[in-house]
Structures are given as structure tokens and as C-alpha cells.
């Protein structure tokens, strides 16, 4: 049974790229483009890992993460944050909000793959 990953990202080309990489590694990837109902989607799908963009329409990635961490059922969910803003304060904000990993765009495919693997050890 392959692991499931939910990618919350509004940029279609990036969804396409990440989906391609992870699918080839055996992940079952689904994507969601808005921040507003992202948490509902997570609850519904119960993925093993989440990749979360910061700049989302409707609700920012930080707020989504906060909601995840405040939810008892989801608080342990591994989250990799992606942002196009590369400043230190963004990294700090992300880690404080409870991200397990943090990565800036443009990212290296290998790094994303390894990070996702590291967060969810293959069963």
C-alpha cells in the first residue's frame, strides 16, 4: 500500500512537477489549490504527509498549518512547507507554526523527495 500525499498548491505547473516526481517514487499524490477548505480536504483524505504552499488563495499556508496543529486528530501529521519567499523570517514563521520541514522555491526535486521520504519512513 503506497503512502498518500496531499499537495496544497495553487500553481498548476508546480503541482504537475511535484506530482510527477513523487508518483514515480510510488506515492499516491492528490492536490488541492485553495487554502480556505484545505483542512477539510486533509480530514477527508487523511494523507500520510502534506506539502503546503504558503501563498495560497483564500487562506495562507501558515493559517492552514496552525489549524492542523490545533486539531488533535491531525496534530502529528508531517508537513513540508514550500514558499517562494526566501527570507529568514519566513523560515522562522513556518517552523514556529509547526512545519516539520521548510523549503524555498525553486527547490531541488531530489531534496523534496528525500524530505518527504524522511518524514514518513516507508512501512
Amino acid at each position: 500500500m503506497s503512502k498518500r500525499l496531499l499537495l496544497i498548491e495553487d500553481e498548476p505547473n508546480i503541482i504537475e512537477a511535484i506530482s510527477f516526481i513523487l508518483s514515480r517514487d510510488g506515492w499516491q499524490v492528490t492536490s488541492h489549490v485553495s487554502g480556505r477548505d484545505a483542512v477539510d480536504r486533509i480530514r477527508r483524505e487523511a494523507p500520510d504527509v502534506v506539502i503546503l504552499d504558503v501563498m495560497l488563495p483564500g487562506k495562507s499556508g501558515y493559517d492552514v498549518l496552525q489549524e492542523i496543529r490545533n486539531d488533535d486528530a491531525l496534530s502529528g501529521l508531517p508537513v513540508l512547507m514550500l514558499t517562494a519567499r526566501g527570507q529568514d523570517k519566513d523560515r522562522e514563521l513556518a517552523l514556529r507554526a509547526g512545519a516539520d520541514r521548510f523549503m524555498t522555491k525553486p527547490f531541488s526535486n531530489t531534496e523534496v523527495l528525500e524530505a518527504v521520504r524522511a518524514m514518513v519512513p516507508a512501512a
Partner: protein
Amino acid sequence: MISFNGLVAICLAYVVLLFAVAFTADRLARLGRGRWLRSPLVYTLSLSIYATAWTFYGAVGSAVRSGLEFVAIYLGPSIVMFGWWWLLRKLVRIGRSQRITSVADLISSRFGKSNLLAVLVTLLSVVAATPYIALQLQSVTVSFEVFGASTTAGAGAEARASNSPTAFWVALGLALFTVIFGTRNLDANERHHGVVMAIALEAVVKLFALMTVGIFVVWGLSGGVPETLARIEASELGQWQIDGGRWAGLIFLSGAAFLCLPRMFQVLVVEAADEDHLRTASWAFPAYLLAMSVFVMPIAVVGLDLLPEGSNPDLFVLTLPLSQGAEGVAVLSFLGGFSSATSMVIVAAIALSTMVSNHIVMPLWLRLTGGRASISGDVRNVVLTARRVSIVSIVLLGYVYYSVSGGGAALAAIGIISFVGVVQVLPSMIGGIFWRGATRTGAIAGLVTGSVIWLYTFFLPSIGLPIFSETLMAEGPAGLSWLRPQALFGIGGIDPMLHALLWSLSLNSLAFFGGSVLSFPSPVERLQGAQFVNIFQHSGGPRSWASGVAQTEDLLIMAQRILGPQEAIALFAREARAQGGRGDLPEPRPDFLETLERELAGSVGAATAHAMIGQIVGGTSVSVQDLMAVADESAQLMEYSARLETQSAELSRTARQLREANDKLTRLSVQKDSFLSQISHELRTPMASIRAFSEILRDSGGLSEAEQSKFASIIHDEAIRLTRLLDDILDLSVMENGRVHLNLREGRLSEVLDRAVASAAAGEGKGAMEIRRNRATEDHAITTDLDRLAQVFINLISNAQKYCEAARPRLTIRVQDLGESLAIDFIDNGHGIPREARDVIFEKFSRISDQKAGGAGLGLAICRQVLERLGGTIAYMPGEGGAAFRVMLPRGAALAAAE
């Protein structure tokens, strides 16, 4: 027989005693103790300097020559003291509240602080006092010589007197004594406790001496009261007929002189400790004079009987006891005469030196030094030096007069001449304090007139100058008989004293009155006049000078208000420690007051500080001049503070500008940060795609051809997106910096719209949107940058394509001719832009977040910039259903900010 040297020794011992008394009194006064020093009794006794050697010795002589005439000299002052009590009280009150230091100061203050008047009065006083001082020197010298002569049994004592060095030494000694006690310190009120005390003692000595001689004569020589009365009856003195005119004249003269004599003014007004002392003095002083005169007649009669023919009756008081071998009585009598002479000279010299230094030396010095150092300690030393030099000069002047005049004239005659001189001040003085209409011009006219007449008719003839020859006296100058000195206007045959008194005072008064009526007073004169005349309305009730501690407390309260509580208390404590006293309050000694004044002057200005301290310490009220100086300072302070206010307003304006500039910079900096952060985001997003797919293409084997092609297209599209973004940013940046170059051309609006619609439709491949136009309305000629305008239109069309979420998107382009300008509206059939977002859509990177972003959010910002350059506007149009933008374009070449 007592030797000459023995007598000198007695004199010296007496002088040492006086020193001791004066020194002790000064010390007690400074320590704030010894209030009894300022009792009514002391005040009364100090007034007795009126009775000089002239009265001590000369009264008997006068009695021998003119019977009871000498009584007139005592009656005048008694009448003034007793009957004109209210006048004296007014003088004392004025002197106190105006801080008057002398007769000259009084006259000059009243008439608008006129220094000319002060100089006039000073000169008059000095001239008038000189013979009087000479008189005192003569009496002391002669009395010395009497003792010397009696030892050698010679009769020519008086002849030798004027050549004797005794007079010189006496003069020098008196000058020294006066300098030491009169100018030891500078009291703000010119009061001299020590001197007054010494004078009071001398008053007691001279009364005691005269009484002793009288008792010795009546009971020792004459055999009792009835026998003495019998002798008087028998003597030709008893037959003396009263000369009504001269008698009345003398009474008036002595009364007036009592008020005007500088030395009398000094003790009566300047040294007065309390107005209420006048109450006691008003009866005690006449009583003193009565006691002084009781034995005059008996001594005169008995002297005439017992002493050889030709003896000088002026010296009976001395020679009568000597001739009877009563040496003790004679020595006492000598001391009485000595006391009379010294006390007069000392006070006169102090009074005159105050005038000379205040009104002649100081103004000259200040003018010479150009008013520099007006607050520094310099002035103090200069004043003291001026006083000292003045004292020595005045006493020596008396000595010179004495040497020159030969000392032959009868003592009483010289005194009368002086009296007539000083009473020339009377019209100005009385007029000044009772008549508000009196003016400076009147005072000067009166004084000059009176003084000239006095000099011409009385003073100059008396000193025997060669020009006042017998011919001149008899026929007048150049034969003008109406100008004969002792028969002015042909009215001769009356007593010279009466003649001089009548003419000088009446013409003086007339000139004073006439001058006052004909002239107008200056403002200061008016104020001073009102202050002087209405002194009792102005100055509350009579006040005593408070004790030292009370003064210091008042000073502390005042200083706290000005310096602040901590500083004032610290200053007082420091000064108290410096004085070595206990407690926190220092004695109000001059050096402390000076320090305090300096401290206060730093805060409120010198004149104000001086006036405030004077007010508290002197118990004086503030004079008009003080007020004016205060006003000057206040004006300066106000001007200064106005300048400060202006500066402070400027500073706060500058500060506000700086703050605004800083706010703007901060805002700009925040904007710049957010701009960079936005750019970073907008650049990184396409780059992320490019990198991800290029890595996939590089690293992943086994990609299908379709996949490879698709990924390559994505990379290509994202690269184009990046390029467009960079173009937009540069475009905007150039336009914001105003460096844009406009390429103005003539064209047709419809053609520009055609281009834009075609371009937009081609761009994203989203041909689904229907675009409605009305070509008939679009046909306008425009002159503008056609490419830029097309850029704006493309932006608006592609925005509609991107964001219109209607099922069948439609854009209506509507053109209206508004006369001055054209309105081009772009209206789609979507949901429109939410009200809260409408304000920000023209800002950079503003995207309505919930929507799928196609661009970087720079489009509308660029549109706004372009239209600004082209002289038009772009705005959101609410109420059109969907999103609606209106572009306003000026017609023709009305391109406002084109270049």
C-alpha cells in the same frame, strides 16, 4: 593748671571713647541686637547736632551782644518740631519710601530724578556748609588756645588762633574719624548706627557740660537763683529791646534751616529708624533746646560782671570757670564744646560727602567708564573711595575757609550766613511735597535765583573778597545803585540778614512758582510728584524695620519663588555657614545681600533684584526709577522670550517636517521591502517550475515523447512569463521615476482598440470571451503615445479575460465623447470587484487573493502610471454589474505631464 598736652590727651581719650561707642553700636546693629540703639531717645539726642559749637559757645556771646536774640535760633526748630510735626512726618515717610539719601536726592527725585538739580543743591550745600565747618574748627581751635593762653597768662589767644597748626590737626582728626565711621560700609539706606550712637553720647556730654557750667555759675559764683535774677535785672542786657523784624526773621530762618540743613536732613530723615520716633522728639527735642538755653543768660551776665573788660563773650562758657580756677568744670565745658563741634562736622561731612559722591563723582565716573561694570563690586569701591575723598575734601575746605577768612568774625554771624544759604532749598522742598504742579524748571529757576541773590547779597560780602570793595557796597556795581548788595532795588537800611533772607527767598519762591506754572512736567516728574504729594495714600501705614531674622525669612520666601526651593535653601544654608552662625538662616549682612542680589539678578535682572531686596531689607517701597528699570528688563526678557518662542516654533516646525520626512521614508522603506518580497515571490514561482521540470528532463529516464514535449513547453512558457514580469517591473520603475519617453503620434482611437483586442485574443489563447464594441462611437482622432495606450487597453481586456467568471464571459467597450476628453469604458459581466478591494487594485502586486492569479499584479499599476503620463486617468466604475474600468483620455495635445 592743666597743660596743653594734658588737654590733648583728654581729647584723645574722649575720641577713643566715641570710637568704642560707635564701634559697639555698629556691631550690635549688625548682629541684629541692640534695638534700643534705635530708640526715640537716641533719635532725639542725635537731632541735637543742631546745637553746634555756635550755640554752645556763641549763644552766650549772642546774649551779650543782642540780649535774648539767641532764643530765636532755638525757637525756630522747636516750632517746627512741635508745630510742624505733620510736615516732618511727611518728609520722613517720603525719605523712607523713596530711599532718599540726602536733601539733594530728595529734590532731584521729586523733580524727575534730575541730576542737574542734585548738583545744584549739592554745590549750594557745600558752599553754605563750608563756613559752618570752619566755624566749628575755629571754636575747637580757639578753645584749645584758651587753655594754652591761660597757662601763659596771655590775652592774645584768639589772634594766634588762625595761624596755629592746631586747627589743621583738629580738621585732620575729624576727617579721619568721619571717614572711619561714616564710610566703613555702604548701607543701602545710608544709615550709620555707630555714628548716630556716638552723636547721641556727645549730645548728652554737651548738655551735661553746659548745665554744669550753669549750675557752677548760678550757685557757685552768683550765690543762688534770686541773686542771679537780680544781676540780670541790673544788667544792661535786661534792657534789651526786641527788634520785631529780625526776631521773626531769625525764628523763621532757624526753623527753615532746621529742615534744609544737609546734616539735619541726615539725622532727621535719612537716619530715622521709625516714623513714630518723631512723636517723642516733637516734645523732647524742644525740651533739650530749652535746657541748653536756660543758663545762657546767667552765664552772660555773670561773665560780664566778673571777667575783665574786652573778654570775648563767645568764650565765657570756658573762660568763666577757668578764671575762677574751677579747672574740672572748664575741662568739662571744653569737652562740651568739642562734642558740639565734632558731632556737627562729622554728620555734615557724611551728609555732604553722600551728595558729592552720589550726584557729582559717581555720574562723572560712570560717564567716564561708559557705564561698564555697573553691577560689579567695582562700583562699591569707587563709591567708598569717593565718599572718603569727599569727606576729607569737605573738612579741608572748611579748614581753608577758616585760614583764609582769618577766623575773626563773630561765630554767630557765620552761622547765620550758612543758614540763609541752605534755606534756598525750602521752596523746592515744601513746594515739591505739597504741590503737584511744581516742576523741575521751577525748582531750578528758584534755586538758581535764590542762590545767586544769597551769594551776592550775603555770602560774598562776608568773606571780604577784594571786588566787594566798600565802593561797590556803597554804590553798587558800575554805579548801578539799585544793585547795591545790601540794598537791592534801592531798599536799604534794613538788617543785612533780613535783607538777604527776604530778597533771596521771595524771589526764589517767585521763580519757583512762575517756572512751575509756565512749564510742563515730564511723565517721571508727574509720577514722582504724585508719589511725594500723596505719600500717605501710597505707602500704607508706618512700618518699623523688621528684625534681622524676619527679614531673612522674607528674603528666603522671595528667593524660593525665584530660584526654586532647593536652590534657595541651599544658598541660604551655605551663606549661614560662611557667616559662622547657627541655624540655616544667615544674618542680612551686606555681603550676604550682595550675593543674594547677584544670584537673583541672574534670574530676574539686576534692577528687579535690587528693588526686591531693597523692598524687603530697607522696608522701602519701589521707586519709579526702579519700576522703570524693572520694566526695561521685563521688556528685554519679553523680547528675548519672544525670540526664543519664534526659534522654538521654527524648531518644532523643522522637527515636524523631519518627522514627516522620516515617516515617509519609513513608509517607503516598508513599501520597498514588501516590493522586493513580492518580486522575489513572483520570480521564484516560475523559476521553481523551470527548475523542477528541467531536473525531471535531465534525471528521469524513460520519459515519453509527449511528456518531454509537454515539460519543455512548460519551461518555455514559464521563461516567457518571467521575461514579461521583468519587463513589467522595469516599465513601472521607469515610469515611476518619470524617465519614460513618450512617442506621441496622431492616430485613431478605433485602430488602437482594434490592435488591443487582437493582441489580447492572441495572447493567452482564451478566445472564449465575447467583446462588444460600437465602432461608430470610436472614430476619434487622438494624439498620444499610441503603443502605451494600446498597452493599457490590452491590460484591461486580458484582466477581463482572466478574471471574469461568468459562464459566457462578455466585455463591452463603450466610448463617449465628453467634450474635453474621451471616456473609454471596459465593462465585463462578471461579479465585479469587491468594494473593499477597489481602493487597492491600482497598487503594485495587489491581487484579489481568492482568484487564480495569472499575472504578478502589476497590470493596473502600470495602467495608472501610463495614463498619468498621457494626461488622463483610470478609475474603477461601481454600479455597472461586473468589473468596470473607465479610461479618460484628453483630446488633442492636452498632454499634461507628457515629458
